[in-house]
């Protein structure tokens, strides 16, 4: 096989790639923040004493974790339309990503909360902390610190999964590659460039999460040890 690589035409479109990468970053960052909030709330819900809330959160997690993101994106996108709401593609894509990430985050955070030793909570009770204080300082924050590595892997996976939103027309990196290859007929090069950009983004994201971990978790910063 002899194939002449011709990157010039593809690379000439760099403003498009830059725009796509920016949208990918926006989608990932917003989905990560909202997904973490929803996931943590669901984890609290799943552990709560109210049977109905626990069942509801459990059903949400199972429904999302056992269906493909692509189908979820279609259901959300057409679901908004079915309700008669006109929402921009960006919002529909973001909503689907948040729903998806929320379920995965829920399971990870729940595992962290379950791993908190009972003695810790009893000790906090003996110190006369209020229930809210215990939940925040003894259960939730240490749980998040414990599962932080697993959470960041999930967030990086989500960043890669934003590529799937191109299927409803979100103009992120993969959609840009589709467009560039149809204009330049250089599909191999276009997808190679985009694959490299994703690789770069995933390393940047890992580095950013590592730094963020040091910033947020005081203990990790001071002692340099994992919980």
């Amino acid at each position, binding site marked *: 096989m*002899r194939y002449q690589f011709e990157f010039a035409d593809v690379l000439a479109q760099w403003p498009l790639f830059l725009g796509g990468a920016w949208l990918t970053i926006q989608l990932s960052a917003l989905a990560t923040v909202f997904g973490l909030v929803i996931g943590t709330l669901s984890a609290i819900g799943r552990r709560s004493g109210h049977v109905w809330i626990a069942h509801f959160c459990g059903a949400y997690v199972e429904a999302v974790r056992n*269906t*493909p993101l692509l189908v979820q994106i279609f259901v959300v996108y057409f679901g908004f339309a079915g309700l008669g709401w006109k929402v921009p593609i960006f919002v529909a894509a973001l909503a689907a990503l948040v729903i998806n990430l929320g379920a995965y985050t829920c399971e990870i955070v729940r595992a962290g909360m379950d791993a908190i030793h009972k003695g810790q909570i009893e000790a906090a009770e003996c110190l006369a902390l209020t229930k809210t204080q215990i939940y925040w300082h003894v259960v939730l924050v240490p749980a998040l610190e414990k599962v932080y590595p697993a959470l960041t892997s999930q967030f990086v996976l989500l960043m890669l999964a934003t590529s*799937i939103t*191109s299927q409803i027309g979100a103009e992120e990196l993969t959609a840009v590659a589709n467009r560039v290859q149809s204009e330049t007929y250089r599909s191999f090069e276009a997808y190679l460039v985009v694959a490299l950009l*994703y690789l770069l983004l995933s390393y940047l994201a890992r580095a950013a999460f590592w730094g963020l971990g040091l910033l947020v978790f005081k203990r990790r910063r001071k002692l340099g040890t994992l919980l």
Partner: protein
Amino acid sequence: MTGSFSINHLEFLLLGASWTIALALIAFVGGGLVGFAVALGRVSSIAPLRWLMASYVLLIQGTPLLVLMFLMYFGVAMAGFEFSPLAAASLSMTIYASAYIGEIWRGCIESVPRTQWEAAECLPLTKLQRMKLVILPQAFRIATPPTVGFMVQIVKNSSLASVVGFVELTRAGQLVNNSIFDPLLVFLTVAVIYFALCYPLTWWSRKFEAKLGRHVLVQAE
């Protein structure tokens, strides 16, 4: 309106589901074979082999499966190789699965207690014997729950083969939707079928895990 959802449409979706299963099986077998080699390479004593496998995993885990699909189907076709949608989808799914399965199995191999490796060394077993007779049988038990769990990911991610025109469940849903234009109903049905495929695997994986956990507890006592 252009007609409503009928039994024929459902039949078409179920046909698509059988292709989803077929693609998932290909990806699991192919990914398992390559992934096994990756896992062994990652724990090998030959440093260049370790680096090679580690960079392979980093490379594949750092790019989306969707881009891999496009690269295989459109990219390689432009370069002169014509792949059928099935071949392109199988190949990209295999590559994708091998990187993840390789990492899962490496973790399992490494989680076999250090003393087992040392004991095998003391019994003058060769490296091959140690792997085959001591480490792998134990790693296999640890590996079962996460491997079954990963099969769920494979089934779900096979939906991305729809972008290269391979008619599996999601693509079948899109085709049905094109003819009756009731997207919400169609894709909810598709979602239910995926759930029916994946949930048993999830359940099975959990059951294995519980069994393993109990066994470990008994051993610890």
